[in-house]
C-alpha cells in the first residue's frame, strides 16, 4: 500500500548469489548473451538462452510474480510480431483472413522472432533485477561510459524514488485522512496530488541540491569496485563456456 512495499528494486539490494557477482562480469556475460541471441539466428539458441535465464531466475529466487509482470511487455510485442510476419512474409499461404493472406513461413519466422524477444527480455531482466544501480554505474564507469551519462543516470534514478516516494507519501497521507474513501473525495484528492506533485518534488530536489552545494556540489561518484573474487571468476568462466557453447550451436545449426 505504501511506497515502501512497492519498491521495485528491493530485490536488487537483497542478498543472493546473483547480486553478489561482480557487475563487470555480469555486464560482459549478459552482453555476450545478447549478441549471441541476436546473431544466433536459430530457435535452438534463443530457446536455450530463455530456458537458462528462467532457471537462473528460479535459482536466484527472483520473485516470480515480478518475472511475469516484467516479461509481459516484450511478450505482448511477440503477438504483434507474429501477426505482422504471418501477413507480410511471402511463401505458402495456409489461410486467409479478409483481405490478408496468412503465410506459413511468416508464421514460423514470427514465432522465431518472438522467442528471440522473450529470450532477450529475460536476459535484460535478470541483469537489471540483480544489480543495484550504484554497482551498475561503477561497472559502467570501469567500461569507460561517459561520466555525464552515468551522473544523469544516477540523478534520474534518485529522483525516481523521490517522485515515487513523494507521490506515495502524499497518497498515503490522503488515504489515511479518508481522501480516497469516496469517488468525490478521490477526485478532489487526485487533483490536489497532481497539482502539487511536481512542485513538491522540485522543492525537495532544490533542498537536496542545496545540501549538495554545502558539501561541495560535485557529481555523486561511486567508489571503485573491489577486485573480482572467486565467485566472479567462477561466474565469468561459466558464462564464457556457456556462450561459446551457444556460438558453436549457432554455427552448427547454420551449417
Amino acid at each position, binding site marked *: 500500500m505504501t511506497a515502501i512495499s512497492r519498491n521495485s528494486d528491493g530485490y536488487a539490494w537483497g542478498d543472493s548469489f546473483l547480486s553478489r557477482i561482480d557487475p563487470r562480469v555480469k555486464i560482459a556475460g549478459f552482453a555476450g548473451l545478447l549478441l549471441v541471441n541476436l546473431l544466433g539466428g536459430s530457435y535452438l539458441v534463443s530457446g536455450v538462452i530463455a530456458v537458462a535465464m528462467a532457471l537462473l531466475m528460479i535459482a536466484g529466487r527472483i520473485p516470480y510474480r515480478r518475472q511475469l509482470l516484467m516479461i509481459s511487455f516484450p511478450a505482448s510485442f511477440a503477438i504483434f510480431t507474429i501477426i505482422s*510476419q504471418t501477413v507480410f512474409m511471402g511463401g505458402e499461404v495456409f489461410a486467409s483472413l479478409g483481405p490478408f493472406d496468412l503465410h506459413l513461413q511468416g508464421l514460423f519466422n514470427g514465432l522465431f522472432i518472438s522467442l528471440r524477444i522473450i529470450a532477450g527480455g529475460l536476459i535484460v531482466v535478470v541483469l537489471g533485477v540483480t544489480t543495484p544501480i550504484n554497482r551498475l554505474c561503477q561497472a559502467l564507469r570501469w567500461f569507460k561510459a561517459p561520466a555525464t551519462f552515468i551522473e544523469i543516470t544516477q540523478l534520474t534514478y534518485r529522483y*525516481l524514488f523521490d517522485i515515487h516516494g513523494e507521490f506515495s507519501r502524499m497518497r498515503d497521507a490522503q488515504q489515511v485522512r479518508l481522501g480516497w474513501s469516496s469517488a468525490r473525495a478521490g477526485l478532489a484528492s487526485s487533483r490536489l496530488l497532481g497539482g502539487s506533485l511536481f512542485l513538491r518534488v522540485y522543492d525537495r530536489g532544490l533542498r537536496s541540491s542545496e545540501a549538495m552545494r554545502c558539501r561541495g556540489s560535485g557529481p555523486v561518484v561511486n567508489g571503485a569496485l573491489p577486485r573480482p573474487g572467486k565467485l566472479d571468476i567462477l561466474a565469468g568462466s561459466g558464462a564464457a563456456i556457456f556462450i561459446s557453447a551457444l556460438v558453436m550451436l549457432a554455427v552448427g545449426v547454420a551449417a
Partner: protein
Amino acid sequence: MHIPEGLIPAQQAAAWYVPAVSFVGVGLVGLKRRLVVKPELRPLIGLMGAFVFLISLIPLPVPGLGTVSHPCGTPMAAILLGPFTATVLGSVALFLQSLFFAHGGITSWGANVIAMAVGGSFSAYGVFRVSRRAGLGIGVAAGMAGLIGDLVTYGITSFQLALALHGDEAVLNVWGAAFASFLPTQVPLAIAEALFTAGVVVFIANQRAELLEGAVVRP
C-alpha cells in the same frame, strides 16, 4: 512504445546506434558544460529525467495488437531544458527502463533513442519555438509541441518496426499499415500528451517562471 530487445535484427540495430550515439554524445558534451556553469540545474535535470522515465512507462493497451503504448515526456523536457539535454534524458530513461522493466531493450536502445529521445525532443522543440514566434500562447504552443512530438515519435517507431518486420512487402506499405493500426491508441495519447505538456508548462510558468529561463521565446 519502445521496441523490445531481440525484435530488430542485428544489422539494423547497429545502424540505429550510430545516429543515436552521435546525438546523445553531442548532448552530453553540452550538458556537461551547462552543469559546470550552473550546478543548481541538477535537481531540475534529475527531476525531468525521472518524469520522462515515469511518463513513458504508463502503459495503455493498443486494441487488437496486444501491445501497449504510452506518452513520451520528451516534449516537455525539451521545452524546459532544450532538445539536446532532453535527448540525453530520454536516452537515460530508455536505458533504465530496459534494465528495470524490460521495457525497450539494450540492442534496440539506439532505435528507441532515435524515435523517442531525438525525434520527440527535436520535433517538439521546433514546434514550440515556431509557435511561440508565430505569437501563440505558451499553453497552446506547448500543447502543439506535445502533440507533434508524440506523433513524430510514433511515426519513427512504426517505421523502425516496418523496417524490421516488413517481410516481403514494401517497407512503406507496412509502415503505413503499422502507423494506421497504432492510430486509434495514438491519437488519444497524443492529445493526452498535448494536454499534459501544456498543463505542466503553464503551471510552471505561473508558479515558477524562473524554471523556464530561455525556453520561453517571447512572441
